[in-house]
């Protein structure tokens, strides 16, 4: 059975390195930064020591940036030191030459601008190929930038730039004020990192990190998303470069060599990729050791090399990930103890973990059909789900109203069917799909059946843009899809599910569906991250829309659980809920019922029925012939890439060729084994 594998290897994922998402505790977070900020002041350390702390903090900023591109978006970047160096040099040059007196704001602006430009210049060519190439190209730049600096006379070549020798440069603020300012910047960057992680950008990053196919199936352009991740990660690197030059008043090629990039990487991995506080902790450990290693400085490469290997091998989620895991284990242990309580109290006290346990013990099979706590929420979206014409809007108290995009069938191509004509594709001599015609009509359920390897999944991949057809057309109302990208087709309202569920396993179930509902809500990325303007209400509308979709599948109770930890059947239903949340015009379901319990299948069938009732054209690929013949209005039968029959279930059921293919014998000679 072929799954989508076209780009499978092209994106080495860092997903496994991404730790728990439950690290956000505001009290501990603020206390952590207050300790960093005021601890040294209370202890009365000298100004020189403060400067050393500033070095650690500035490089932690770069680690925070690396975490955005690598931890959040899953893109391999091995040259964060290069962007840091470019920013540092830009700030130093501005202070030394361009503006009399320089000044911190101008240096910071120069650093950020230079870093972003460098990010784009590196990103644009390398992201085209992506994955491992991206990692190597960025590593190449880590070696290249110091080389350029060494040979650039205007930037002081080997000696670098000494701001202290420039009379117009005045370090203002300095001392304690500067230290607190830098701590403040790290604090703000960490808050922004958290905010980004849980914004619509963060959800797109997550989808990209999980799999490029998943991102594409949701209409997320992986190129644009990668570039955004790259540029966003350059901002903290730019700040770090500018502040370090301002604080130390010097920069030289030796201080930005390729090894620095490896140490920054070490900080991110050791702290915990994908976590919020991890980069600061990891950065503090690595650069703190470098700063205060004293007589061991010549062994730092050995120390960090071994540390990095050990962390990658033994604790790939990093320190914060391990911490999170211990916390979760403790919570679970605690929850298990509580189950001595009478059943009536259990649900209220323990919420989700108990239901998961119930599911694992087989009691959830019936439970799943009864309304859960979320299912009863009076949500206008939920109510409107079955009424396609109803204008949906949600106005939330005290914030800007946000409206969902109007129903798609109201658009110009609303009534058109999706037409597949003469679709063909071969793989190295094997004709997987051979001149297949198909029509998916809005509001109708068609089914595609056939033995293993008959080309069913390949057709879905061809129609949704994951494979390029060798020949044939795919049109909706005269508009051709066959040469479009998967993301474009998804954006045009053609959704799909995958045979093996593709979920953002480290994210909550709700976020897994929100990444789909986000697409229908008008809100800029900046508003979403900064939680201004439409940002807050958009997130809420998206969440309630996603909750409604989960409720449709009867799994709203799992909303706050981690997607990777729920049972397989639920994962399938999550994927279905995500497809519902897209509000597609056409939906291609690849064996959605595989591995589901009868109760879950009932929920699934109801959801599919309500989708077609709402005007969605559904194509169902399914092994369970009985289910298909009961459900579908039109059935197409494939055999070895060829369409051998199509029509109503009755016609197909009695077709001699179909019977021969499925039962391995001729219909008119019903042979009985007499042996």
């Amino acid at each position: 059975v072929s799954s989508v594998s076209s780009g499978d290897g092209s994106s080495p994922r860092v997903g496994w390195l991404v730790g728990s998402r439950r690290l956000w505790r505001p009290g501990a977070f603020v206390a952590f930064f207050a300790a960093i900020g005021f601890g040294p002041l209370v202890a009365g350390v000298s100004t020189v020591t403060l400067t050393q702390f500033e070095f650690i903090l500035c490089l932690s900023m770069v680690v925070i940036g690396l975490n955005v591109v690598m931890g959040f978006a899953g893109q391999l970047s091995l040259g964060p030191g290069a962007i840091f160096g470019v920013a540092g040099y830009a700030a130093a040059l501005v202070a030394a030459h361009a503006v009399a007196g320089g000044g911190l704001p101008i240096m910071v602006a120069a650093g950020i601008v230079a870093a972003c430009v460098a990010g784009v210049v590196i990103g644009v060519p390398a992201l085209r190929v992506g994955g491992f190439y991206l990692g190597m190209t960025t590593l190449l730049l880590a070696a290249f930038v110091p080389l350029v600096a060494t040979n650039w006379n205007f930037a002081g070549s080997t000696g670098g730039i000494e701001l202290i020798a420039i009379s117009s440069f005045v370090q203002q603020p300095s001392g304690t004020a500067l230290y607190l300012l830098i701590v403040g910047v790290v604090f703000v960057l960490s808050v922004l990192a958290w905010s980004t992680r849980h914004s619509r950008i963060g959800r797109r990053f997550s989808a990209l990190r999980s799999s490029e196919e998943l991102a594409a199936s949701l209409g997320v352009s992986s190129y644009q998303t990668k570039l955004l991740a790259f540029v966003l990660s350059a901002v903290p690197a730019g700040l770090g470069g500018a502040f370090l030059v301002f604080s130390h008043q010097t920069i030289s090629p030796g201080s930005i060599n390729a090894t620095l990039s490896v140490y920054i990487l070490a900080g991110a991995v050791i702290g915990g990729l994908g976590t919020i506080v991890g980069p600061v902790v990891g950065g503090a450990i690595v650069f703190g050791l470098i700063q205060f290693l004293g007589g061991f400085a010549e062994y730092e490469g050995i120390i960090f090399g071994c540390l990095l290997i050990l962390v990658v091998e033994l604790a790939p989620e990093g320190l914060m990930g391990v911490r999170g895991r211990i916390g979760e284990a403790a919570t679970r242990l605690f929850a298990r103890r509580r189950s001595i309580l009478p059943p009536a109290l259990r649900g209220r006290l323990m919420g989700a973990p108990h239901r998961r346990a119930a599911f694992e013990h087989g009691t959830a099979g019936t439970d799943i059909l009864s309304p859960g706590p979320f299912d009863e929420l009076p949500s206008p979206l939920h109510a409107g789900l079955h009424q396609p014409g109803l204008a949906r809007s949600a106005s939330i108290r005290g914030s800007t109203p946000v409206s969902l995009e109007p129903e798609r069938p109201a658009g110009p191509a609303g009534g058109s069917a999706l037409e597949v004509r003469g679709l063909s594709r071969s793989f190295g001599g094997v004709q997987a799909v051979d001149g297949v015609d198909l029509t998916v009509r809005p509001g109708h359920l068609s089914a595609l059946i056939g033995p293993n390897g008959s080309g069913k999944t390949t057709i879905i991949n061809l129609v949704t843009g994951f494979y390029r057809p060798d020949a044939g057309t795919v049109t909706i109302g005269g508009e051709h899809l066959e040469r479009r990208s998967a993301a474009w087709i998804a954006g045009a309202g053609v959704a799909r599910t995958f045979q093996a569920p593709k979920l953002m396993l480290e994210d909550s179930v709700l976020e897994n569906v929100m990444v789909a509902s986000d697409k229908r809500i008008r809100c800029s990325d900046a508003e979403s991250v900064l939680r201004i303007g439409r940002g807050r209400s958009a997130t809420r509308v998206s969440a309630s829309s996603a909750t409604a979709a989960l409720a449709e599948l009867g799994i709203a109770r799992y909303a706050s659980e981690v997607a990777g930890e729920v049972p397989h059947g639920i994962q399938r239903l999550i994927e279905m809920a995500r497809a519902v949340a897209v509000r597609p015009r056409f939906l291609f379901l690849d064996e959605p019922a595989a591995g589901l319990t009868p109760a879950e299948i009932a929920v699934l069938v109801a959801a599919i029925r309500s989708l077609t009732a709402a005007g969605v054209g559904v194509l169902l690929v399914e092994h369970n012939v009985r289910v298909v013949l009961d459900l579908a209005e039109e059935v197409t039968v494939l055999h070895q890439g060829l369409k051998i029959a199509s029509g109503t279930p009755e016609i197909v059921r009695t077709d001699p060729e179909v019977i021969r293919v499925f039962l391995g014998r001729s219909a008119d000679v019903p042979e009985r084994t007499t042996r």
Partner: protein
Amino acid sequence: MNLDILLSGIVTGLASGSLYAMVAIGYTVVYNATRVFNLAQGQLVMMSILLCYFVLSVEKWPLVVALVICVVATGIAGIVEERFVVRPLLKLGHGRIGWLIATLAFSIIIETVVADVYGYNPPKAIPSPLISHVLRAGPVTLSMQYVLVVASLIGVVLLIEFFYGRTWTGQAMRATAEDREAAALFGIEPARLGMTAFAIGGVVAGIAGFVIAPIVFSTVSIGLTYSLEGFLAMAIGGFGSLRGAIVGALALGVTTELWDVYLGSHIDLAAGLCLLVLVLAIRPVGIFGRVGERTV
């Protein structure tokens, strides 16, 4: 434009490309058997260069001893890397970049160890009986040491072709490169192949370091450059193909040399970068790469 300068630039480029080719061959052998891109490959070459310096300049032992020590030491380093850095990660099986970070970390360890033993001394010349001899062909002159580099490349390629074609382990490796799962079904043990591949990668790096040492002097920081040039060669030629690695490396050598001749040698890493961008724009899988196999 002076034709002689161009010609001699091309010849020198082919000769220095032969070195990149040896780095790229080390990558390819390891990559084919394990799907791991060993980022420490360049550092192994650097280690071999500095061992040469130690054996020939400090201890003043004969050349043969230097060759044996270089090859054995880098081979052992390769085995150690496979056993302690790569295999645990491949066994864990999660993700596909853990090994990238781990081999990068290992390369830093090698560099630091060598630097601590050797000290951060200024580059020193390494003696060789060949360096003063020159091969003349019309307007083109080439140091005999470079001739030795080219000859070693040919020798290494022939040996590896023999290994792939005639030995059981070599054929098993080739089968694994072709189809990992099918090879595993035939009882080919990936772990054993991995160790052999890393050992071969190490030995090739050792030979490369030995033949190039008199030309490049002794510097610790050159390892990363070799790792990167080797990657560029493979990316240009196409991953997984021995032929691609060699052609990519020679193209890279010539481009870099001509960049040096006409634009100056300060930032000649840019030559490779430009060539890479060009190749990726035209043919993202590299010259000999198979479509759909671009990925690692």
